[in-house]
């Protein structure tokens, strides 16, 4: 808690940005059913549990070509 009190100016925007990335990826995963590979469950797992890298991987490699 001590760290949070001292560094909230960093941590709060950081968490907001990471959450925004996650939410954007998650809504996309749930709204579309075409993925280049993998299943919906796999992508939900990746997007939720791997911060930053997960949503990035989804948007760059996993997103279906068909919109």
């Amino acid at each position, binding site marked *: 808690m001590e760290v949070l009190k001292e560094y909230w100016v960093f941590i709060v*925007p950081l968490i907001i940005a990471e959450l925004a990335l996650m939410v954007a990826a998650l809504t996309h995963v749930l709204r579309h059913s075409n993925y280049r590979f993998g299943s919906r469950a796999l992508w939900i797992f990746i997007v939720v549990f791997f911060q930053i890298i997960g949503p990035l991987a989804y*948007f760059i490699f996993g997103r279906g070509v068909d919109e």
Partner: protein
Amino acid sequence: MKHYLVFFKKELLEYNRTYKLLILLLVFLILGIMNPLTAKLTPDLLAKFMPEGVSITLPEPSSLDSWAQFYKNVTQMGLIVTILVFSGVLSSELSKGTLIILLTKGLPRRVVILAKYMSMLVLWSASILTSFLVTWAYTVYIFPDGKSANLLFSMFCLWLYGALLLAVLLLAATLVKSSYGSLLITGVVVVLLTILNIAPAIQQYNPLSLAAKNMDLVMQNIEPSSLFPAIGVTVLATVVLLFAAVVIFRKKQL
């Protein structure tokens, strides 16, 4: 001119719809916040994880550490994500066939290449600027030591290096069909530049210096003017690459 504007707007709209805009801005924002934070916390973390009885004395972190993080992260993670995001710059539209409709309706091929380059450049500029401003604001806030110099010029160098890589990527996209092919070519070019950098005589002219000498600039170990040859070569190379991309794309069978 009208063609350029319309196609440019279409590209920006596409960046928004395909989440490219969101990804790049958020990733660079996150990097921007992490740079000063990592610089501040690293000594504490190291001290915590040292085994019992071992004590090391680390110098107090300064604004230089924060900028070192910036140039490390943006040249690695930042550039890699940018190139990955833009890897399908031509191939996705060619494979879907949407570009062919526009071209048969009389859109000059030159416009496609140049407008695509301009829009990539705009997004890359916005991204690096986001990261720079955020890092700068936090650094001034936690390390008000004023030790860092040449900040804007140093960022400009890195930006220019990114602009060169985007031109390489675009030329590669006109040469090969798949997006992985153009990624591979861009990677090979970076490796070649790294190998060239071994020769001290070439270093001065090597575009890679623009992404490698940033901390020397910030610490005032070198003069900004020492990078002018590399800047000249980079600008020239970018223009030549774009010209080549236009010529090749014009002759390409779609």
